[in-house]
């Protein structure tokens, strides 16, 4: 963590300068899909992609790690791994999120209730593990922290499971930025709620928090081949989204969205008040918006051929709310949907970008797209299909052109999962 003395010195230097010019507004959007409370958007060229990678036994140290990759084309190390920070254990690394001031990344694994805090503000090119929060299970009974969503001075963490029966009943845990637990919020199990959780996303202007639903530890840690043959287990997936009063943190409406709705993206266009999600098992796009004052969910599109279970896993909305990238894991395909009419998305482009693809992130201007390969350790493909990579692409509006690749197996880094972008301009204090 940035030391008090160093920060103080930097502050003193800064304040000694006479010229004090501008304040920065709180961000209402993100270069891809972060919390609207995350500030300091990278609107130019990003310098780094941070990849949260699952450890693989026998590969490197076998532990989960945060990998920093140089993605600035002007750099001599463009497309190269700069460093990695191992957490010393393997816990099904999955997602991560910035604190509101973007000085820290919180990350965690689905197989454990731990949360890792990395300092990326002191030296954006060299993250440092500064804190491990291990008390979530004791405080809440929740297991598998998934989404890390910045709130002002706080982090709202959506979990996927629980330590009692390792099923899908779970909830959200709220921490302050120092990592102190504040409160837990169980997912609703009444009024049509199924108790499952997955992603969360806030629309501050409407005082609305949306959550989606996946499945519990006993399913997501099970080999996918076994799971799909177990009809009873396949019933234990979420079929709902929940509308919450953000201020009160109370569920106000349960929306029926069958087939495990996963990532939630609010349109970033000012004035828009709708969100979109993809249901993994049914391969459908769903729109959430107000109709006659009531929040409603509406199926608005199909992703690929649902009978072939393409498994849409991640989506990334463009900054103008008019385009949506969708990665389908099973067929390794990256798809672009025209969202000009969010009531009727149209697929306008597809490209096979890997033998298996999962997460997708884009730069603020949409010209650079990054794709990783791993879904879950026990759901990834086997043999030669088990590619593990970060691939960087250029997007000219018509064609994705691969610019670089980092082979995570060759580099002994494990399975590449979630990504966040970094920039030297976001250094919290001047370098010495």
């Amino acid at each position, binding site marked *: 963590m940035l030391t008090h003395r160093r920060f103080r010195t930097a502050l003193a230097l800064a304040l000694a300068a006479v010229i*004090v010019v*501008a304040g920065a507004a709180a961000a209402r959007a993100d270069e891809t899909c972060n919390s609207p409370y995350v500030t300091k958007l990278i609107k130019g060229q990003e310098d780094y992609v941070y990849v949260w990678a699952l450890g693989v036994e026998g590969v490197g140290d076998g532990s989960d790690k945060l990998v920093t990759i140089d993605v600035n084309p002007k750099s001599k190390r463009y497309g190269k791994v700069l460093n990695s920070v191992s957490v010393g254990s393997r816990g099904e690394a999955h997602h991560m999120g910035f604190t509101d*001031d973007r000085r820290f990344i919180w990350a965690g694994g689905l197989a454990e209730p731990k949360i890792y805090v990395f300092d990326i503000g002191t030296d954006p090119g060299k993250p440092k593990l500064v804190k491990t929060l291990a008390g979530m299970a004791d405080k809440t009974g929740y297991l598998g922290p998934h989404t890390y969503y910045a709130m002002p001075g706080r982090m709202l963490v959506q979990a996927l499971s629980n330590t009692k029966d390792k099923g899908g009943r779970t909830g959200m845990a709220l921490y302050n930025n120092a990592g102190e637990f504040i409160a837990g919020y169980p997912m609703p199990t009444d009024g049509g709620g199924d108790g499952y959780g997955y992603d969360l996303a806030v629309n501050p202007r409407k005082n*609305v928090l949306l959550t989606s639903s996946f499945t519990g530890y006993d399913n997501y840690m099970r080999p996918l081949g076994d799971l799909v043959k177990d009809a009873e287990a396949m019933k234990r997936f979420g079929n709902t989204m929940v509308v919450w009063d953000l201020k*009160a943190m109370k569920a106000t409406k349960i929306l029926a969205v069958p087939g495990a709705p996963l990532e939630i993206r609010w349109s970033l266009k000012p004035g828009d008040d709708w969100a979109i999600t993809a249901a993994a098992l049914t391969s459908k796009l769903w729109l959430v918006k107000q109709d006659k004052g009531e929040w409603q969910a509406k199926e608005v599109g199909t992703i690929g051929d649902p009978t072939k279970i393409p498994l849409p896993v991640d989506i990334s909305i463009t900054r103008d709310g008019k385009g949506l990238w969708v990665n389908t894991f099973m067929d390794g395909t990256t798809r672009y949907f025209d969202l000009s009419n969010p009531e009727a998305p149209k697929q306008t482009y597809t490209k096979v970008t890997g033998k298996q693809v999962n997460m997708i992130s884009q730069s603020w201007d949409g010209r650079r797209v990054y794709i990783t390969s791993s879904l879950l350790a026990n759901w990834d493909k086997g043999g030669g299909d088990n590619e593990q990579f970060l691939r960087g692409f250029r997007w000219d509006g018509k064609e994705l052109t691969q610019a670089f690749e980092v082979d995570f197996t060759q580099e002994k880094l494990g399975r590449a999962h979630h990504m966040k972008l970094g920039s030297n301009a976001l250094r919290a204090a001047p370098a010495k």
Partner: protein
Amino acid sequence: MATRRATLLLAAWLAVAAPATAHEPATLPALDFVPPAPGTYTLQRIMAAPDGEVLGLDGKPQRLATFTRERITLLGFIYTTCVDPDGCPLAYRVFDAVHEAVAAAPALRERVRLVTLSFDPARDTPPTMQRYAGSRARQGPVPWLFLTTRSARELMPLVEGFGQDIRYTTDRTGGTPRRELAHVLKVFLIDADGFVREIYSSAFLYPRAVLNDIETLILEERR
């Protein structure tokens, strides 16, 4: 209920108030949702408000805790040269609206104070803060304190303790590199025991919501 009256007064004030000459020609953002009623929700204890030495307009050192205890406190960091419309000027307009509404509500006016604290001690000396405050710096029934610090050394624990992010950049677009100071607006609602109970960003800083939160804390104290 008196605080309901405060809300009505706030609405009326927002409709007719003239902009303060030096600070806020723009209007406040409209509230696009119906906030939950006071007392129907819980404001969590986010963290303890930090303490440190500050300077009042008279230049005398005092403990910040003097101004974050006993009353419910709305505290915001500013610097007097800030011009970002979503930054300090927005906070100023919201503080104005809250102050007027609280002053008009007998049930609130003895329970609330406002604190504006500079994070630019090099420029924002007590006399500068006096000019910035103008007629707002008054003790009255609803105190509004304008504070600064003697130096970065004394400011630092407060900035870090509140989690008020400040960033330094160097503008090289001109002939001479200029060091710039940027921040992200945060306003802190502190209960009478000195705990931060809400943090507002510009995306969630509405006078009506702040008043509801103040009323919620008062209702909590009565339980």
